[in-house]
Structures are given as structure tokens and as C-alpha cells.
């Protein structure tokens, strides 16, 4: 099984051609405390999806591709998470600092891909670049079915100074013992450095690609909502589906690289719990 998980990870590296910021991990959007696991145990999911995604957020070009997500939690609080379709925080390694009944927070380290990585030269860019980050997450469960999830990241390297936040509220509706439908709504925020590196076009780039220069402002990057449907067939196999829509806010959507401020995506796939 470990080999298969490894192969899936490799595939996630090579197959990701489109990106959408589907905000939450498809397989476990429910808060699960690490202190509720037996000592020296783990919980691991690997999901493989067929996805209809925009080539990049703001693109009107859609892609059909295989997508992967992996979530691995250890009882000591370490977590590993991979979402091949998430742009800015694709690979995450983290640790729960506190994970008791209603509240769960911790630190994250990881890498995402620069938005420009998905934009071809003819569309005005070709700089594929990894964005390493450090940050944290905070989850709060208001009731059995309403939860607040957030993530705050700070970028390093070429993207130093960029800060990004993703805030979401999730309401779940149990259909029966094995099916749940979850609605989520949220927003992503970026500071000036972040929005400039992801959406800005400098004078130099403007001359190189013939696109008008653009300087976005800090604040709300997008608002988004999604519907996720989980269906467990047994304790190992589940079918996950998600429809997701996002709108790029006026702060960042003025560039010609944003052809369509509204994006939609669809993911359907099977996940296995090890």
C-alpha cells in the first residue's frame, strides 16, 4: 500500500496541469482530533479523482485530469497533506500543537506552485516556481455540524513577504450513516506582496510579453463556495464528489491574464482509508 501511495504522489507531481483553490481537503473536512487516536497509531487516506479544473484561477480554459489527495495523520500530531489541485499550498507537512474536543491548531511547512507556473508563455508568463511557506492552521467546531477552518501562510524564497489566508465555514448535513453533504463558503486574502507576485505584471514583463502592466492591491483575493458529497461504502472505501465555484475579487482581477473572474470545478473520485 505504501508503494501505491508513493506512486500516486509521483503522479500528482506530473499530472497537475490545472489548479483551483478547492479550499478543504476532500476526504476529511471534519475536524478530527489527534488526541482521539490510540497511541502509536495513524490515520491515512489516499484519494484519486477525475477533475474538471480551470487551467489556472481566472482562466477560461478548462482541463480534465487526474487529481490526487493524500492525508496522513499520526497520533503524535504530525500531519502530511497533498492536494494536487491546490495551487498555493499543494504539499503540507505540519504538527498539531493542540487538538482537543472543539479546537485544533498547529503549524505548517510546505510548498505550493506559483500561479504563473500554469500560465504558458503565449498567455504572458512562463516562470514555474515553487513557493515554500511556513504557517499555521486553526479549526473550530461550533457544533456537530458547523465548523470554521482557517489557514495562514507566509512565503519565502523569491516570494518572501507574501502572506496568504484562507477562511472557510463548513456546514454538513448527514444524509444517513454513510453519506454526508457539506456546504462550504469562504474567502482567501492576500497581502500586497502576495497579490503582486501572483497577479501583478511588472514593467519588465509588460515589455517582454506585450501585456499591460498591472499592480493589484492587498485584501480579498477571492470568495468561494463549494458542495462536497462523501459516501462511505465500507470502513476503507469512499466516493467523494465536489462542485466548487470561485469569484476573483476586484483587487486582483483587473489583469488581462484573468479572462474570467468566475471559475467552476468538479471533482469525483475514490479514496481509500488505510
Amino acid at each position, binding site marked *: 500500500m505504501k508503494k501505491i501511495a508513493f506512486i500516486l504522489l509521483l503522479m500528482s507531481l506530473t499530472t497537475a496541469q490545472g489548479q483551483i483553490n478547492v479550499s478543504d481537503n476532500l476526504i476529511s473536512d471534519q475536524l478530527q482530533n489527534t488526541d482521539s*487516536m490510540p497511541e502509536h497509531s495513524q490515520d491515512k487516506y489516499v484519494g484519486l479523482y477525475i477533475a474538471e479544473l480551470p487551467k489556472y484561477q481566472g482562466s477560461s480554459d478548462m482541463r480534465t485530469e487526474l487529481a490526487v489527495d493524500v492525508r496522513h495523520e499520526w497520533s503524535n500530531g504530525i500531519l502530511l497533506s497533498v492536494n494536487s489541485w491546490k495551487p498555493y499550498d499543494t504539499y503540507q507537512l505540519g504538527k498539531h500543537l493542540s487538538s482537543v474536543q*472543539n479546537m485544533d491548531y498547529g503549524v505548517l511547512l510546505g510548498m505550493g506552485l506559483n500561479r504563473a507556473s500554469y500560465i504558458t508563455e503565449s498567455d504572458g508568463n512562463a516562470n514555474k516556481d515553487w513557493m515554500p511557506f511556513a504557517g499555521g492552521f486553526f479549526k473550530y467546531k461550533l457544533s456537530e455540524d458547523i465548523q470554521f477552518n482557517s489557514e495562514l501562510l507566509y512565503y519565502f524564497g523569491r516570494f518572501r513577504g507574501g502572506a496568504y489566508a484562507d477562511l472557510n465555514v463548513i456546514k454538513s448535513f448527514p444524509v444517513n*450513516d454513510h453519506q454526508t453533504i457539506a456546504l462550504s463558503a469562504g474567502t482567501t486574502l492576500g497581502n500586497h506582496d502576495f497579490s503582486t507576485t501572483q497577479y501583478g505584471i511588472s514593467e519588465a514583463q509588460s515589455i517582454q510579453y506585450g501585456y499591460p502592466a498591472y499592480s493589484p492591491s492587498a485584501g480579498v483575493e477571492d470568495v468561494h463556495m463549494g458542495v462536497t458529497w462523501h459516501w462511505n*461504502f465500507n470502513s476503507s*472505501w469512499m466516493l467523494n464528489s465536489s462542485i466548487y465555484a470561485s469569484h476573483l475579487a476586484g483587487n486582483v482581477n483587473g489583469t488581462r491574464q484573468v479572462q474570467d473572474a468566475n471559475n467552476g470545478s468538479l471533482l469525483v473520485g*475514490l479514496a481509500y482509508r488505510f
Partner: protein
Amino acid sequence: MRIMVLCLSVWHTVFSRRIEYRNAVMMIKNFPIIARCLSTMVLCTLSTMAFAQAGDTVEFKDGAWISYRDSYRKMISFEKYSGAKQFLQNNIRVAIIDKKSSLDGVRLSLDGKKTHLNLPLDPAGRAVFPMLKAAYDENAELRVNRKDSVVKFEYRISITTRPDGLYEIADLRAACDQALHYLRYQDFLHYSLKQCVGVKFAYGRDQNEISLKVKYNDQLSAALPVAEGSVFPDDNYNAFKVVVYKFTASAESGQIISNDVPLAITALFE
């Protein structure tokens, strides 16, 4: 796993081309692809289900089930709860949702690769939950020999019964408060405005001559009325004899005397 690989190859042949669209009208044209995708998924999952169920025993085939890991993570929170809980018990419960059915012959078992445990149910459908790391690691299932249209799984807090049948009213009030505080800790939004109003004693149908009396200032009241009802307030299975005691400010120092041991005592909130 073989099935997954098969599904992958199907997808590759169906979706190996790039799809582009520029407007909403084109989006509609893409729906058949989504439909194709969905039908492939359904076929795959059906075959995996058939695969997974091949090893099941006949009795539990098609029966209701839940993941042991999910249950474990819910049940352990009571063990780790640091608030007062000495009057409480926490159980996994098989509840009847089909009124025409009954708990007679219903069996609960814990099944994993190596773990096979029969978990006895009490007449209220509750079982003692075994905390087993082995079953967690095996990703075992809790299974019932009834369909999920007939039964469902619940996690229930109830008040422990006493063999001598003698309950201090102050203790019952404390027990109700403990239950409420634990439930608030689990689901703040739902229980934050609720208050304890009383307790319910549930007896089996075959328990005759039930008598529950209030003793206050050395005076014994008449027996409280016995009605037909459910163990927990929101059950829809009413095949029990129940006696409700509502808290009053005056009788706080009294006692409740039950001539028979009830199946369960539950807290009542309003």
C-alpha cells in the same frame, strides 16, 4: 487495487483529450462527459463493494455498519473529558428506527482482519464500547445483523443505575447537569441554551408492578405515574415503561425510591 488500476485505464482512454470551453453554453455541452465520468465511478464503486462484501458472513451481509475508527474517536472523548462525570456512562447504541421492528435477535459485532468480537446489547440497545488499538489499526467495522433502514448507531450518555434503587434527588440533578455539560462540550451550539428539567427512568415491558416514589421529610409520596415511552427523549421506539421525575426547587433534599432496577436513566433537557 486491481480494480482501481482498471478504472484508471478506462478514464485515460475516455479523457485523454483536452477539453476547452469559453462560455456557459459550451459548459452544457460538457455535461455528457461528466455523466460518463459519473457512470464510470458508479461501476467502479459497485465492483469494489462486491469485492469488499465477498468475505462477510451471511448474517451481517447488507447490515448496518460504521467505521470503528470513527466511533473510537467519538467514544474516547468521554474518557478524556476532564469535567465531572461520576454519575454518567457513555455507550455506543443500536437504536431501532423502524417502529415495526424490535431489538429481539439484534446482534452487534466488531469485525476486522483479525478482530472478531460479539458486543452484547442491553435491552435499551446499548453496548460497552471496547477500546482496542488492534481494531483501530485494522480499520475494523462495527456491524449489526439488521439493515440500516431498521437500525442506526448512536453515541449516548445516560445516568448510571443503582442496585439498591435509592437515588438522592441532589445526585440525580448533579447527574443531569453532568450530562448537559458533557453534551455542551461536544456540541455547544445545540446544548448551550438547554436546561436540566428532570430524569427519566426506563423499564422493560416485562417489568411489572413498577413503583417509583419520592421520599421527602420522611414522607413517602404516591407512586409516580408509569407510561409507555422511549428510553431517550428523541427515540421513536416506544416499547418501554417509563417514569418521569421533574425537578422541583422544594424537594431538593429528598430521595427517589425505585422498587426495581431500571434498564436506563436518562437526562431530560428543555
